[in-house]
Each structure stands twice: as structure tokens, then as C-alpha cells.
């Protein structure tokens, strides 16, 4: 683990060992529930979660990357640790996810600033080490850019759906991708969020602490407003319609297209027997083979793997995408026609 200074723990509190930190500072959790001086920290922690749940980034007491005063530093760390305790006690996963994402965004800001820091080499090195230790991405400085190996880049960039993150839209040279500090940090946002949320999820849930009941109950009722309902129109997306038309005409649909139709319909709850007749006009139709393959995709035979419908991005590569405005930035055909209410 990295050795961290006081202000670094405040910037990246998720790197600290929570139990150890409290012990080092000479506190127990119970004290925070009862001691009137410490109680304000529980409120601060609650506030930190509330801001995150709202989709905003918690505005800390840190000014620049220095704490406004020495006392502010431990408060920063305590409020983060207490927030985790509150979340664990509430048991609300939606809140944990939102909190982890907001904390990741917050840390992202500091990482970016540290990475771009020209006056303080040690700050930059720390940021580079955090990125390497936590996410196995080897960052090097080259002129005004940060460079990382193409293979490391791809492992993270595939989580983005915006075209600008595709390797083809990047400056690539000698097996390296050139990034700005902002892009370097942005690249690991999701993993940073996953790292923080896994730390929270894996943390032990303490028994209820007296004095914590009220904020915990407020969290439980707060999480209720995030439950959403979705409705679907039931209409098929254009890619599926197009493929079915080809099959009905008895023209040849490539393997990838058949895979798409079959996995789509299986996900929509149709049975193998309902889907099979769709292929009977295909030039190379063989009922036995079709049933075998459909059962394989459904996971009822073979390895038992249930195959899912390919993403829009993949279908674009396979020339199977015929996007219309109603597709509206969905990333998988299965999302077509779904609306949140």
C-alpha cells in the first residue's frame, strides 16, 4: 500500500485503512454517536451522502490541494469513513453506488490536478503511482502528454460508448496512446468508482450505534425516491426488423445476424421452438442444426452459457445496425423502446 501524507488521505480517503485510521487517532465509532462535539461529523457524513445522491460532487473544505487548516484534514477523512458506516447500516445499494461514483468524481479532480502539477514532482509521482497500483495502468510523461500502452488503454476505453474514446480517434504512436491529464484520469473513472464501491461493499457492517439511528432512517427513506419503473413499447428495433425481413424473404443472413436475432428473441422471453421456424426459409436451413444452435444460445445445451444480445457498437462493426432516431443512444438493441417513468 502507498504511504500517504495527511493531506493525501484527505484527498483520497478511500486509500486509508478505516479501522486503523480511527485507532491511530484514538477514537471509537461509539464516541461519534454520543459526543456532542463529534456529532457534527456524523451530520457532515450524512450531508456528504445526500450531495452524492443528488448527483453532485461533495464540496470539501480543502482549498486547492491544501486544507484550510490542520483541523480540517481529519474531519475530511472522518466524514468519509462515517459516511461508509451510515451506508452500511442503511444497507441501501443504490445509495452506495451513487456515493461511490460521486467520491470517484471528487478524487478524479484531485488526481487530475496532481498529474498536471509541474511545480511539485512528488505530487505528480503519487498520482502516477495511484493509477499504476490500483488500476495497473502504466503512465509515463512524454512532452506535454501522458502516454500509456495501447493494451492498457483498451482495457479501460472499452467501457466508454462515446466514439471519441475509440482507439481510432486517439493519437497512437509506437504502441502508446497519448492523453492529456484530464483524459488519463477520465479513463479510469469507472474503475475508480468500482474500487470505492467494492471497498464499501466489502467493509463489515457494524451493529447499530446509538445516535446513528436518525441519519440511517433518513437514508432509507431517501433511497426510496430512486426506485424507477420502466415501460416498453414492445416494438422491435430496426436492426432486428431488418434481419427478420431478410430471413422471411429467404435471403442469406450472415451468422452474426442470426446470432443477433436469436439472442434478442431469447432475451425477450421467446422459446427455442417459437424462434426456430423463423429460419426455415434460409438457403441452408436444417431443422436439427437450427434447434441445436438455438438450444446452445439459450444455454439449455452445451456449456450452459446463456448468450446475450450483442451491443449496438458491435452490430455497427458487423454492418447489422440500421439506427433510426428512436434508437436514441441506446447501447443494446434490448433497450429499444424502454422508457423510465
Amino acid at each position, binding site marked *: 500500500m502507498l504511504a500517504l501524507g495527511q493531506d493525501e488521505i484527505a484527498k483520497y480517503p478511500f486509500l486509508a485503512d478505516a479501522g486503523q485510521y480511527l485507532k491511530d487517532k484514538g477514537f471509537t465509532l461509539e464516541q461519534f454517536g454520543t459526543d456532542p462535539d463529534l456529532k457534527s461529523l456524523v451530520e457532515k457524513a450524512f450531508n456528504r451522502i445526500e450531495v452524492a445522491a443528488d448527483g453532485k460532487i461533495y464540496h470539501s473544505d480543502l482549498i486547492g490541494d491544501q486544507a484550510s487548516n490542520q483541523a480540517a484534514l481529519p474531519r475530511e477523512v472522518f466524514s468519509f469513513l462515517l459516511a461508509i458506516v451510515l451506508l452500511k447500516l442503511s444497507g441501501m445499494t443504490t445509495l452506495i453506488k451513487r456515493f461511490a461514483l460521486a467520491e470517484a468524481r471528487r478524487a478524479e479532480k484531485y488526481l487530475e490536478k496532481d498529474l498536471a502539477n509541474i511545480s511539485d514532482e512528488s505530487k505528480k509521482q503519487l498520482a502516477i503511482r495511484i493509477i499504476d497500483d490500483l488500476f495497473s495502468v502504466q503512465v509515463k510523461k512524454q512532452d506535454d502528454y501522458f502516454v500509456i500502452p495501447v493494451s492498457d488503454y*483498451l482495457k479501460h476505453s472499452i467501457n466508454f460508448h462515446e466514439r471519441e474514446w475509440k482507439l*481510432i480517434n486517439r493519437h497512437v504512436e509506437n504502441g502508446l496512446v497519448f492523453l492529456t491529464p484530464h483524459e488519463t484520469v477520465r479513463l479510469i473513472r469507472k474503475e475508480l468508482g468500482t474500487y470505492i464501491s467494492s471497498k464499501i461493499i466489502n467493509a463489515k457492517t457494524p451493529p447499530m450505534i446509538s445516535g446513528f439511528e436518525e441519519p440511517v432512517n433518513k437514508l432509507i427513506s431517501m433511497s426510496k425516491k430512486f426506485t424507477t419503473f420502466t415501460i416498453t413499447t414492445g416494438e422491435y428495433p430496426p436492426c432486428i426488423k431488418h434481419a427478420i425481413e431478410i430471413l422471411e424473404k429467404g435471403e442469406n443472413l450472415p451468422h452474426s445476424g442470426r446470432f443477433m436475432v436469436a439472442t434478442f428473441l431469447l432475451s425477450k422471453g421467446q422459446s427455442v421452438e417459437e424462434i426456430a421456424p423463423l429460419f426455415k426459409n434460409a438457403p441452408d436451413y436444417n431443422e436439427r442444426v437450427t434447434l441445436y444452435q438455438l438450444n446452445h444460445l439459450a444455454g439449455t445445451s452445451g456449456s450452459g452459457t446463456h448468450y446475450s444480445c450483442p451491443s449496438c457498437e458491435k452490430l455497427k*462493426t458487423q454492418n447489422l445496425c440500421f439506427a433510426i432516431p428512436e434508437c436514441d443512444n441506446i447501447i443494446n438493441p434490448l433497450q429499444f423502446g424502454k422508457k423510465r417513468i
Partner: protein
Amino acid sequence: MQENDIKFLEDSFKKYYFEHFDLIRVPNRTSEREFGFQKFNSGMTRHISIKDDKELHLLLMKNIPSDVYCSNACYSFPNLPMNEKDWKDADLIFDIDAKDLNLECRKNHTIYKCNECSEISTNSNNCSKCNSIKIEKKSLPCKNCIDASKNEVYKLSKILTEDLDVQQNDIHVYFSGNEGFHVYVYNSQFQQLGSRERSDLTDYIMFNGVIPETFGMKKFKPNRLSFPDFEEKGWRGRFSKEVYGSKSKRSKIISELITNGYSSFQKTLEDISDKIGSKIDPNVTMDIHRIFRLPGSLNSKSGLTKIFCNDLAKFDPYIEASFLGENSVHVMANCPIEFKLKNRKFGPYFNEKVSVPTYAAVYMICKKLATIS
């Protein structure tokens, strides 16, 4: 396929494997690979593990397969079912096939065989005799097909070495045994990449999914200074050479591009993608569990060998990949296209009985354009 045709092909293939075992390249880390094979008129047998040359030799002689395959991936347990194999890593492989290049010459040497009445015609939609739509496409690739495929290999090698830090001697090119080339990349940083990562890599190589911003064009107020320079490396450099043509035209062309606007620029990118991107089959590269034809083995679609190309520029598959015997065989041939093997011309044959060397007989029978008579 009829029984006496199968018997003839099996005899010829067995002789080849007996006499030319030295051509077969067992990949390194043999015992970590998955092998598979097919027999004539039968399904695929896979999930086989093999220790060494000797075991492979035994398998070939015992089974006389029509096709032999080996994984590009290495596993802890190659003989277990797919999800228990424990995938470790996989060589990066590219498949370039003449049939995917939309070549003008294709129509001159592509025919359609009806699966119901065996009629051969040039009609691609339905059989001209019985009107059935169950027809099979058969192609006898020509020199132009091979040259065009080679060109795609050159483009691919350049992108791999210049942009992706692959060493030239880590790129091995094989003739596939039918209509194209398989390009293997060893010791690269991509060895451990999964399927989705490889998929984005294929888009990079094919020049797919490009946005105008990458080349300096913006929707609003584009800036001349952000357009690529002639000497730049990677895609911006290749774009410059293709779109500007020469250094002196750069300034003029940039003005034109800006005047024509964003969507016209997008169109330009799509238009040049065929020319400057390498036309690989993306599905092959992103499949990390696939088994590939084993180098040195015969391709049952042609009877030609999947062979290593030492000097791609000079390579002629119809001389260098044809290893079967010279003995004359009588066949009933219905092969309306002329073809050339080992510097000898054959055909066209129109439902006639002819006597040809074994290698030519195998070629036509594999293409289902002749039967033993």
C-alpha cells in the same frame, strides 16, 4: 459428397500427411493449445490436447482429417469444455479473405451450384433449372484476388509495426489454403487482451468509427491549425497522404474541406476507409476461443496447403501451396471456369470426362465441380 470421391480425397490427403509432415508447424506451447479436426462428410471434433509432433502425426494418420485446427489461445486445460479450460492468453490473428474485398474480378470466377439438382449456373438468386433457392457459392480465386489480398496484408503490417509497436519478425503470414491469408502476431502487448478490446483494435486497423474531430474538423468554427500534417505519424499522416495527395496541395485542400463542411468531411472519411484501412475479418480477430487451420495442413475447400509465405511479394499459391501427386485420375468435370495449378492450365470443362493429375482432380472435387468417374 459421394463415397468414392471421399475415398479418393482421403487417400490423397493421407499420402500428403505421410510425405509432408515436415511442413506442419506445431505451434509453441503445444500442450496448452486446443486442437480439433473434421473428417469428410462429418462434424467437428474439438477440445483435443496434444503433447508434441508425434501425437499430432498419429492423429493425422489415424483419422485422415479433411481439416485440422489449432487454437490461437493457450489454456491450462485445453481438453476440457470451453468454460473450464482456464483461458490464459491468445496470439493476435488476422484473416484476410479475397471474397470480402468486393473485387470486380469475382463475377468472372464465381459460380453457383444448386444443392438440390446439382445444376451449375452464374445466377446468384435461384437455380436456373429447378428454381430452388438452396444454392452454394463456389469461387476459383484468380491472380487478382491473391494480389489484392496481399495488398491488404501490406497495409496491415504497416499499421502493426508503425503504430502498434509490433516487430516485423513477429509477424508471420500464411496462405490460408483457399482465398486469402492468415496473419499471426507473436510477442505483442496484445497477447492477453479479451474479445472486446480486440474488437476495438480491429476498428483501428480497419479505419472504422472515425470522427471528423480526430482530423481537426469541427462542427463549428473549424481551425486550420488542427488539421493533420503530411509528416505526422499514424492515421493523421496516412490521412494527409491520401486526402492532400502532396504537400503542396495541403493548404488548398484544407480550405476545400472546411468549405464543404462537417458532414461532407464525415463522408470523405468513410470513402477513404476502404483504401487506407486494412480489410480484415473483424469476427476472426476478436474471437479468442477460435481454432484456426493448422499451418502446413490441407484445406478441404481446395486441397491446397496452408503454407508459410517467406517472400509474400513473390508468393504464388497455385505453385507453392500445391503439394499433391501427379498421377492421372479420371473425373467427370463440370467446371466452367479455367484455372491454373503448378503452371498448368485446366478447363473449362462442361460435364465432360477428363484425365487430370491428382492435384487438379482434388482441387475440382473439393470445389464440388467434379466427381471420380
